[in-house]
C-alpha cells in the first residue's frame, strides 16, 4: 500500500491545543505544506500573534518569534529588514490584525514590506472567550455583544482584504475560506502564491482565511463550517483581489 496523504514535515508531532473542530489546525497544515513544498524550512521565520494561535510555534519545525498582541507585522518588518534573503510570515487573528494591530498591518503593506501575512478571520476573539471582533457580523452574538452586534452602536465589520487591496505596496491580496475540501485547496494555492510573491520580491502579500471558532460561536464543528459558508463567506469579498500580474497590467 502507498500513503497518498501524509503529514507535512514542516510540522512536528506535538498535538494541537485547539478546541475540537477548530480550523486553525487546517490552516496550520496547509501553511506547513506550502513551506515544505517551496523547500524553505531552513530559511523561513514565522511570527506568531497573540490569540489562540499564539502558541503555534510549538508545532512548526522552523524558527519563530512571538511578540505582543497586534505587533507581528512590525516584528516581521524587523526580521525581514535584518535578513532580506529569508522568508518571513506573520499569522494573525482578526482581533490581533484588524483591531489592535491594524496600524502595523496597513503600514507594512504601505511600505511594501516583503513578507507574507496569513490573516485568520473567525469573526471573534477566540482566545479570550468569544468577544466581538471588528470582523464580527452585524447581529452576531458575542460575549461583548450579547444581544447581537448593533450597527448603530458598534458599527460595521471591516473588510480587511478589501482595504489591503487599495494599498499600493500590497502586491498580492487574496481572500479564501476553509469550509470545504475544495476551498481548503484554494486556500493553500493562495498561501503558496503569497509566499512566491514574497520570494520574488514583489512586495507585501496578504491572504485572508475565513476560519471557524466552534467553541465561541456556540456551535458544533460541522455547524460551524456551515455558518462560516453562509455568513462570513457571503459578507466578505472572496477571491484573488490583487496579484502582481494584475497590478502590472493596470
Amino acid at each position: 500500500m502507498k500513503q497518498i496523504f501524509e503529514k507535512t514535515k514542516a510540522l512536528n508531532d506535538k498535538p494541537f491545543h485547539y478546541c475540537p473542530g477548530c480550523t486553525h489546525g487546517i490552516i496550520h497544515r496547509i501553511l506547513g505544506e506550502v513551506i515544505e513544498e517551496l523547500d524553505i524550512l531552513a530559511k523561513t521565520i514565522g511570527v506568531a500573534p497573540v490569540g489562540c494561535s499564539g502558541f503555534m510555534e510549538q508545532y512548526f519545525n522552523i524558527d519563530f518569534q512571538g511578540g505582543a498582541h497586534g505587533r507581528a507585522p512590525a516584528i516581521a518588518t524587523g526580521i525581514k529588514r535584518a535578513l532580506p534573503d529569508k522568508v518571513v510570515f506573520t499569522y494573525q487573528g482578526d482581533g490581533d490584525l484588524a483591531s489592535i494591530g491594524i496600524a502595523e498591518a496597513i503600514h507594512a503593506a504601505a511600505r511594501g514590506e516583503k513578507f507574507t501575512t496569513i490573516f485568520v478571520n473567525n469573526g471573534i476573539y477566540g482566545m479570550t472567550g468569544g468577544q466581538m471582533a471588528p470582523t464580527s457580523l452585524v447581529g452576531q452574538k458575542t460575549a461583548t455583544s450579547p444581544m447581537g452586534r448593533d450597527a448603530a452602536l458598534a458599527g460595521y465589520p471591516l473588510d480587511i482584504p478589501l482595504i489591503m487591496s487599495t494599498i499600493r505596496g500590497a502586491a498580492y491580496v487574496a481572500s479564501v475560506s476553509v469550509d470545504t475540501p475544495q476551498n481548503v485547496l484554494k486556500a493553500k494555492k493562495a498561501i503558496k502564491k503569497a509566499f512566491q510573491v514574497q520570494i520574488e520580491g514583489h512586495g507585501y502579500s496578504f491572504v485572508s482565511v475565513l476560519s471557524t471558532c466552534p467553541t465561541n460561536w456556540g456551535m458544533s464543528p460541522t455547524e460551524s463550517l456551515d455558518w462560516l459558508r453562509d455568513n462570513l463567506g457571503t459578507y466578505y469579498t472572496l477571491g484573488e483581489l490583487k496579484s502582481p500580474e494584475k497590478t502590472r497590467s493596470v
Partner: protein
Amino acid sequence: MEKVIVAGFGGQGVLFVGKLLAYTGMVTNRHVSWIPSYGPEMRGGTANCSVIISEREITSPIVNECTTLIAFNEPSIEKFAPVIEKGGKLLFDASLIHLDKPEAAQYQWNAVPTLPIIEHIGLAKSLNMIMLGAFIKSSTIITLEDIEKGLKEMIGGKRPELIENNMKAIKEGYNWRKWVSTHA
C-alpha cells in the same frame, strides 16, 4: 473546613457544581470562596475550580491541598489526586473513568457509577448533580437541606422545575452506593 476541587471537561457543569457548593455555604452563613482555573489551558477543554467553605475568614482561595476532589475525567485525577490531603476523599465518575485505586493512595476512593443513575432518573445532563449528591453524602458540613437552600439562592424563583430536577439528581447521587452493587 472543606476545600474542594471540582475538575473535568468544559461543558460537564464542573464550574456549576463548585458555584452551587459555594452558594450553599454562603446561605448557611459560612465563609466561602470559589475560584476557577483560568487561562489558555481552557483551549484544551479542561475546566476546574476550587471551593472553600469555612467557619473562619478565608485567607487564600487557592487550594493547594484539598479535602475532596470531585473528578469528571481521567486527566483530572492525574492532575489533582496528588493534592488530596491525607484522609481526604476522591469522588469520580466511574462510568467514564475506569481506574483502580493506587496502592499508595492515602485518601478515600469513591467510584460513583453515574450511568445507571442517569438512566434511572432520565435526566441526560445530570451527571454533575449526581456527583454533587455523592459529595454531600460524604460531607460533614453540607446537608441536603443546605444544598436546596443554595440552589434556590443561586437559581432564584423563576425556574422551579430546574431546582426540582437538580434536587432529584442530587438525591439519587446522595444514595449512590446502592447502585454500586447493581453495577459492579
